[in-house]
């Protein structure tokens, strides 16, 4: 849920021409199999190859502008369906799939039981980034010492809570209407109501209190997303004990808030609250704060984002019971040791935010009608997002993308998975390489990553028998970062010295969330360090941090003999 959100600002007209050289298509292999991001060596290619000079080739099979479905592979006559594709859930995943489906000429419907945009637009990425933008500016303005170093004086920066909340809310509404309009404009039918699968290729939907409608579709994608997970024993009252859904409305700024969970949701909220003047206490079940990050980045992040701020923490503990504030008493949190389960401490705070992860929203989907059983709520799928039933067989024509399948709970992963599914149903096999999907945490400074962490890479290296190389650069060496007086930061590259393959990149620093894409693109396209280090970066920009990183890697393999991707253009 924390990523650069998929934003559509309105595609003009409904006659979306299917262009053979559209940049929306990626490079394809002559064997009609597109594996995004796997090394070319897997296909016997030595480096990037193109059959023609720079122009992208695509496979000509399987694309049709016709509304009716193409012939089934098993030879049975095509039934007539109401739609080629029905998507249950109009969140980011569903929206991404819908847009791509229309581009491929599929007649598409999307069912939404609540608000278009789902979590990301209404209760996630969008409002949280609005709040983080405010907190970033607030932090800068209040950092007298930072301002003074630049020669600036700012007197008493303050904020109006309602104004901040309105900014987040208005943004969510705006993006929601953009999404709705973009789908309407493309001719996607937006069906309102809760969608349920009643049988193979058949869905019913309807609003509560109204009769249900039944629609049929050749393929169905489940994209129902997730909701904040609240562990047992925690009583949420929406005012003093809240989840991210409530927090993003910013109805109040407590003096002291306890945040249960120190993953990126908890971390981002600590950034917002401390910038607005609150004090924060983290409650983390594992022994390390920020367990999901590369440990070196996590340590640096702790030094910069936690230690100097008005934040303390308790690790290795569970919050077994949280009682909302009432009768003049504060919120009471009872902590037990995570391993021994012995009572450890009791906290008294003004507010508690539950950020212990998200649970899939799959109840009432009617999965039992197609013999599918969820695992801890998640819909089981294979690497192609195809749903698997209780017997381990693939359910034909049924896919599940996004948070509901639990593979990678990020907005852009959901839409990438959606696009992958649409590719498959329009005749081109596609397997999404999740290692090429970046993730970001929008604290100040930002944290971003793609690929493996150092421990994961070393584990893989030991199993497969290769060496791991690690290169690091500091933002202190970057002119632009120093000009902004934001030299605090680190970029880390984990790679294979024998082949030049990038295994993972982690960045902590100004604009890390934007900078990571050079690395994620490289991983997706299989670009190797010895080739990418010749790419030129504008000076002075923050991207030179990555340039330094690539240049400092010690790769033993030679640069690819085919040179850069496109032919040199004389300027």
């Amino acid at each position, binding site marked *: 849920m924390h990523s650069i959100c998929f934003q559509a600002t309105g595609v003009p007209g409904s006659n979306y021409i299917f262009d053979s050289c559209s940049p929306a298509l990626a490079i394809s292999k002559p064997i009609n199999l597109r594996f995004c991001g796997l090394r070319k060596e897997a296909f016997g290619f030595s480096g990037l190859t193109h059959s023609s000079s720079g122009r992208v080739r695509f496979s000509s099979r399987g694309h049709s502008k016709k509304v009716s479905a193409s012939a089934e592979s098993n030879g049975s006559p095509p039934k007539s369906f109401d739609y080629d594709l029905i998507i249950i859930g109009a969140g980011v995943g569903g929206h991404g799939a819908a847009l791509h489906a229309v581009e491929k000429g599929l007649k598409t419907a999307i069912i939404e039981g609540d608000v278009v945009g789902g979590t990301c637009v209404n209760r996630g990425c969008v409002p949280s980034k609005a709040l983080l933008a405010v907190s970033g500016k607030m932090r800068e303005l209040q950092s007298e010492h930072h301002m003074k170093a630049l020669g600036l004086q700012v007197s008493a920066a*303050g904020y109006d809570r309602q104004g901040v909340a309105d900014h987040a809310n208005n943004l969510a509404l705006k993006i929601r209407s953009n999404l709705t309009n973009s789908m309407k404009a493309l001719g996607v039918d937006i069906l309102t109501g809760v969608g349920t699968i009643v049988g193979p290729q058949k869905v019913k939907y309807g609003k509560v209190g109204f009769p249900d409608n039944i629609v049929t579709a050749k393929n169905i994608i489940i994209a129902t997303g997730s909701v904040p997970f609240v562990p047992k024993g925690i009583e949420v009252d929406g005012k003093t004990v809240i989840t991210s859904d409530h927090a993003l409305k910013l109805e109040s700024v407590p*003096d002291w808030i306890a945040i249960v969970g120190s993953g990126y949701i908890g971390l981002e909220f600590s950034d917002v609250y401390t910038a607005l003047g609150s004090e924060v206490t983290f409650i983390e079940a594992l022994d390390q704060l920020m367990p999901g990050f590369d440990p070196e980045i996590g340590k640096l992040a702790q*030094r910069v984002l936690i230690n100097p701020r*008005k934040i303390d923490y308790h690790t290795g503990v569970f919050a077994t019971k949280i009682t909302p504030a009432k009768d003049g008493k504060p919120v009471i949190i009872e902590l037990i040791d995570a391993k021994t389960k012995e009572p450890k401490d*009791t906290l*008294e705070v003004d507010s508690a935010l539950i950020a212990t992860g998200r649970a899939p929203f799959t109840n009432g989907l009617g999965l039992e009608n197609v013999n599918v059983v969820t695992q801890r709520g998640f819909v089981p799928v294979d690497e192609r997002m195809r749903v698997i039933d209780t017997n381990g067989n693939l359910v034909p024509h049924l896919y599940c993308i996004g948070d509901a399948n639990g593979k990678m709970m990020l907005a852009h992963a959901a839409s990438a998975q959606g696009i992958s599914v649409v590719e498959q149903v329009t005749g081109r096999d596609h397997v999404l390489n999740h290692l090429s999907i970046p993730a970001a945490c929008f604290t100040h400074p930002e944290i971003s990553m793609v690929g493996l962490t150092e421990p994961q890479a070393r584990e893989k290296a030991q199993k497969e028998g290769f060496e791991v190389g690690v290169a690091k650069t500091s933002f202190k060496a970057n002119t632009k970062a120093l000009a902004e007086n934001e030299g605090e930061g680190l970029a880390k590259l984990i790679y294979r010295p024998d082949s030049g393959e990038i295994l993972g990149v982690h960045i902590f620093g100004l604009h890390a969330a934007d900078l990571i894409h050079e690395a994620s693109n490289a991983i997706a396209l299989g670009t190797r360090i010895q080739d990418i280090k010749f790419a030129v970066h504008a000076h002075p920009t923050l991207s030179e941090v990555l340039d330094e990183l690539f240049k400092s890697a010690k790769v033993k393999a030679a640069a690819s003999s085919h040179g850069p991707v496109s032919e040199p253009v004389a300027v």
Partner: protein
Amino acid sequence: MPALSSTMIEGKIVSWVKSEGDVLSKGESVVVVESDKADMDVETFYDGILAAIVVGEGETAPVGAAIGILAETEDEIAEAKAKAASKSGASTPSAPPPAPAPAAAATPAPPKSTPAPAAPTVAEGPRKTVATPYAKKLAKQHKVDIESVVGTGPYGRITPEDIEAAAGLSPSKKNVGLAVVVETKPAAPAKAPAASAAPSSLPPPVPGSTVVPFTAMQAAVSKNMVESLSVPTFRVGYPVTTDALDALYEKVKPKGVTMTALLAKAAAMALAQHPVVNSSCKDGKSFTYNSNINIAVAVAINGGLITPVLQDADKLDLYLLSQKWKELVEKARAKQLQPQEYNSGTFTLSNLGMFGVDRFDAILPPGQGAIMAVGASKPTVVADADGFFSVKNKMLVNVTADHRIIYGADLAAFLQTFSKIVENPESLTL
């Protein structure tokens, strides 16, 4: 906490390389400290066992503060740990650990059974101490025992302001800034007047004046000067005839010898004969005799003052000393002095003669026994015992010393020796 740069006044511990109980040998990296430029590995100069860590990872401490205690033998570890606990003050509450647990369990009960007391009461006896995260950080930083602070925040919790009041600090400006929110919180108006009350005790600024805050170096100097107020000092002056020294200077000047080097060497040689003047009083109850004679010489660099140290000044010959001095001055100007090179002084020399100053009193730097202030050498009319006049170059030397260890007679004797060396300077060139 080592000073990793000349501008550093406090440092942050990045990580402890060694843990409590580890055996350390001289030269091993013990801890990683963050300076304003980079993270540096800090080595130990002594063998021993890391008995206790006083400042933990992520915490800050001022330069010179103890960050860890090294025990020479295993037996001393317990003693070292106790020392560490007493230094950090707040961490080990006097009440045994089981006490807070039943107290916590008891707290939900009393509010129900006693209807009378209002909710935001001041912390009462058996009640668990609740302190906000920032309050805890401040308590550790300012060595305030958090258990002894009375909480005035909501529900009786200890707020950062309570800690600041306990530590005797004026409330930080931050509170005033955030109180300027459009939405009125009940606590905010109360905080604002309290915060503004503190600065009003200072005299109003003279119109037309500008306020320039201290740089790190200036703050360090100011801190040292204020610290010196706690040392009982006295001053002894002595007129030294420098004709012979001046003649020698003319001779050795072309070889790169400076007056500073000559005076430093003379002082060092005198100190060799009067070790008590080279000692210092570190704890108020003992003499710390230094085995080396390291003469720190005060140098003014733009905007600041630094004292590069000529180590073993008595052992090096004049030419070597001058060369070293030149290197040190260059490094000082480039702000590249290593901590060893400016905080290892055992005696300080300060010379304002180049301005024409005839005599002045220097302030004793903390950690040293004496400082010598040297004026200009001026031709002076002197009368001898027989009533004959002559003109001699006289330089007024004034030494400030710590009377806990150096007594009047010691200092006078030292000055007499110094004067003899300066008046017979052939020994300087040996």
